[in-house]
């Protein structure tokens, strides 16, 4: 959902109206973000991003070095090299491509490289499938990346630019994955408003040129954390039981600082463009008086909100929260919003086989410390691109309202829209 401020710094009429799909929106955002190196490999439904970006390069519209790598593993590897050398680096992938990157995702985060990755979320093989679910993104949950899920094409554009701002913030210095639902967003045309190039440049402070400083014993002064012939540092050493744990603490601490930065960036973007997404972390709707709240990630957020509006107009006390920031997970913020709610339905477009949906696990954790805990039901839905029909969601709400009445959860893990 997009909230509009009365007088943004760049009024809507000064913004550029474009009818584009999610992939193109991401490509334009990366272009305007003055990305130095794009290393990417085609994979459906992300391919349009690299195609579009290749056009920018071929037409001389960008200074970017485009590295058409031979695999996603090399895409992320090249981004690591580029970011360590001081460049602003970007890549995009999906599903199996993201899985192939997996090893290097951890390395990018551990080396504290502010890479931005667009994931056009797609189901993982096998059987091979090109359509949307969140299994790919859930797979990188523990890699140390910031993960943001967007609801529409406008948000995909806005968030890609914001991602660079967040990643490069000295309090953060972590890579950011922007998740847009494959096909539902990647290939769907929407009217969006883009900023003029120079406004994006200003928002990001121009090219990436300031670097975090570190202190090592062999230099008197603090030195920039990049591959710098003037002050040599070594990236990626062997780190055993005596220091590895301490280095993980750095990542843990950095993650703690992410929410405040995401909030700030969301606010700044709001002042500039008139658009914001909740507080940048969670996008609640109708939660204040709700007995039943459904949480959701990504494009289904819009469908759920549509049903919430419909049901509320009929007098049902229902609400929804779209989780925009999935890593770090906003446990405290969610608990605060869900305090006093009777039943929470957690929608997961993916599952941890043998357990629950990954967002359900986090929400359970978030709610455990509440004195009066809401009842919880996990709804797994939409695997492999199965459509999340409004009727299906409405049925889910009715089920949850029934639970609110009876206080009884018969099945904690439910599967929506699957044939038996």
């Amino acid at each position, binding site marked *: 959902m997009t909230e509009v401020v009365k007088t943004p710094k760049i009024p809507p009429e000064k913004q550029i109206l474009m009818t584009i799909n999610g992939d193109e929106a991401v490509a334009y955002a990366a272009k305007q973000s003055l990305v130095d190196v794009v290393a990417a490999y085609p994979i459906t439904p992300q391919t349009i991003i690299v195609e579009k970006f290749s056009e920018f390069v071929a037409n001389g519209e960008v200074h970017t070095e485009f590295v058409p790598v031979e695999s996603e593993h090399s895409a992320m590897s090249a981004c690591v090299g580029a970011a360590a050398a001081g460049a602003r680096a970007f890549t995009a992938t999906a599903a199996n491509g993201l899985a192939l990157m997996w090893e290097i995702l951890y390395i990018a985060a*551990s*080396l*504290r490289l502010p890479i931005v990755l667009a994931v056009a979320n797609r189901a993982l093989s096998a059987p091979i499938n090109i359509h949307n679910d969140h299994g790919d993104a859930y797979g990188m949950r523990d890699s140390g990346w910031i993960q943001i899920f967007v609801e529409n094409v406008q948000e995909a554009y806005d968030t890609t630019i914001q991602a660079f701002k967040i990643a490069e913030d000295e309090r953060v*210095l972590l890579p950011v994955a922007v998740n847009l639902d494959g096909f539902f967003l990647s290939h769907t045309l929407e009217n969006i408003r883009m900023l003029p190039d120079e406004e994006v440049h200003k928002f990001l402070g121009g090219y990436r040129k300031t670097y*975090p400083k*570190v*202190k*090592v*014993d*062999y230099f008197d002064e603090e030195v920039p*954390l990049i591959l710098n012939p003037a002050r040599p*540092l*070594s*990236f*990626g*050493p062997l*780190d055993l039981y*005596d*220091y590895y744990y*301490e*280095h993980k*603490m*750095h990542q843990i*601490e*950095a993650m703690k600082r992410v929410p405040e930065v995401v909030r700030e960036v969301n606010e700044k973007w709001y002042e500039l463009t008139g658009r914001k997404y909740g507080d940048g972390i969670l996008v609640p709707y109708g939660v204040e008086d709700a007995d039943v709240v459904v949480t959701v990630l990504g494009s289904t957020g819009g469908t759920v909100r549509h049903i919430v509006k419909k049901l509320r107009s009929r007098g049902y006390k229902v609400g929804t929260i779209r989780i925009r920031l999935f890593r770090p997970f906003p446990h405290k913020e969610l608990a605060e919003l869900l305090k006093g709610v009777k039943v929470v339905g957690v929608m997961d477009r993916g599952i941890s086989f043998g357990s629950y949906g990954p967002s359900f696990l986090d929400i359970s954790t978030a709610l455990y410390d509440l004195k009066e805990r809401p009842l919880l039901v996990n709804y797994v839905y939409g695997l492999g691109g199965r459509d999340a029909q409004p009727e299906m969601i409405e049925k889910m709400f009715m089920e949850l309202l029934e639970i609110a009445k009876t206080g009884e959860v018969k099945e904690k893990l439910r599967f929506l829209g699957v044939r038996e």
Partner: protein
Amino acid sequence: MAELRGYKELPIGAVPFRLSTDYKTGDWRALRPVVDHNKCVKCMLCWIYCPDMAVIWDGEKITINYDYCKGCGLCAHECPVKAITMEPEPTE
């Protein structure tokens, strides 16, 4: 080894904060190379081949930096005039 530091004292990004010259590999050595300066023809082959940067040319003569020399014996083997011999480490 210096005292282990806490994470608040470490540079981020896991970049090493000290040079390995602190770490003296000389105690790996069983035999030590000894240079006979009367025989040495200053051809520099030992300096060129030493895997441990432990051969020092000071502008006049070759010396061995026993802080780092691991005693592999490569210098003695490659010396074309047999000016370097491998000798047992002196006991206390």
